[in-house]
């Protein structure tokens, strides 16, 4: 956990986009042991979710009697690069849509199955399996003007102070990346490994769970899972991470 007292010491620091060094994955801020865990597919616990997702991909379900595979074929081809470009603009809702919600949309609208809950084992597994197909590919946010206002809003939220501790994301992740906050090094907040396996959680979790953790740490009321603000933040974080390779499943402390 991030300690409030230490966070308070950072409040006075101003932060701007200009403070941001060259983008570096959060993987570069973890211990050699954690890095080794991520690198070995037979030791990386996140692979349990990837392999569970592979099973779900092939399982027929819902009123359509179809599996993801019936429509999309081999995920290695059809899902390659998909995670690197999400969130995308969804004309139906006139808003960005992230990968988890897209997967749920396919389940409810096309497969005729029940939607999966945020942080459910099934949604995390499918999300990990789909995102894993982009491992090694650079984050490539879509050049889509319709997304601009939402990226701007995500950026605004990122630089806005929040919580009782009254501190912005940028005050930690831009101004103090690479410095210590209790036991951990502060990463640059690049969302390249999600869903990640977090040792503290003893489980895989989504980017939104990670963001909610940072918000609680500064004693802010976290945005709800699936909230528009969450998706805007995800979108902005992906735009900052352009060019970094997707790592799913990442391992973090």
């Amino acid at each position, binding site marked *: 956990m991030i300690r409030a007292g230490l966070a308070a010491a950072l409040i006075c620091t101003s932060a701007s986009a200009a403070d941001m060094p060259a983008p570096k994955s959060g993987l570069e801020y973890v211990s050699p042991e954690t890095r080794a865990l991520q690198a070995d597919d*037979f030791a990386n616990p996140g692979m349990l979710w990837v392999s569970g997702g592979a099973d779900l991909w092939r399982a027929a379900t819902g009123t359509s009697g179809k599996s993801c595979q019936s429509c999309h074929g081999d995920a290695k081809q059809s899902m390659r690069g998909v995670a690197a470009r999400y969130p995308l603009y969804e004309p139906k809702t006139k808003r960005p849509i992230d990968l988890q919600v897209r997967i749920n949309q396919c389940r409810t609208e096309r497969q005729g199955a029940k939607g999966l809950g945020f942080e459910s084992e099934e949604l995390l597994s499918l999300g990990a399996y789909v995102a894993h197909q982009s491992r090694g590919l650079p984050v490539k946010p879509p050049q889509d003007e319709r997304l601009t206002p939402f990226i701007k809003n995500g950026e605004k939220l990122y630089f806005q102070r929040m919580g009782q501790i009254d501190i912005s994301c940028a005050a930690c992740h831009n101004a103090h990346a690479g410095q210590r906050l209790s036991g951990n090094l502060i990463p640059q907040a690049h969302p390249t490994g999600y869903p990640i396996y977090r040792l503290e959680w003893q489980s895989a979790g989504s980017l939104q769970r990670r963001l909610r953790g940072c918000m609680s740490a500064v004693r802010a009321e976290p945005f709800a899972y699936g909230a528009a603000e969450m998706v805007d933040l995800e979108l902005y974080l992906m735009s900052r991470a352009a060019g970094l390779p997707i790592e799913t499943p990442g391992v973090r402390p």
Partner: protein
Amino acid sequence: MAARIMVNAPASAAKGEVIEIKTMIAHKMETGHRMGTMGQIIPRDIIHRFECRYDGALVFAADLFPAVSANPFITFTTVATKSGKISFKWIDDKGKSSTSSVKIKVT
């Protein structure tokens, strides 16, 4: 969802060779020491026993305790003696037993 298990073992080996086997299973390993939101104890549910059999004979076993973290990763070595089946079994406090196996060719 079905039990999620990962096993990594060589598909072939020379007779007498020491082979490394890596196993991992998804399990929450609930310690029995945590409390739920209403202050009640969450009952212990851990995998307490792991066994590996090579062609039916027990070659490796482990007793696990609440301090073992979730999704236990167990890696060990054994000697390749003959072609056959290497099987794995995990047993938890609810009596659920999960199994998996691999084939090995020994030349």
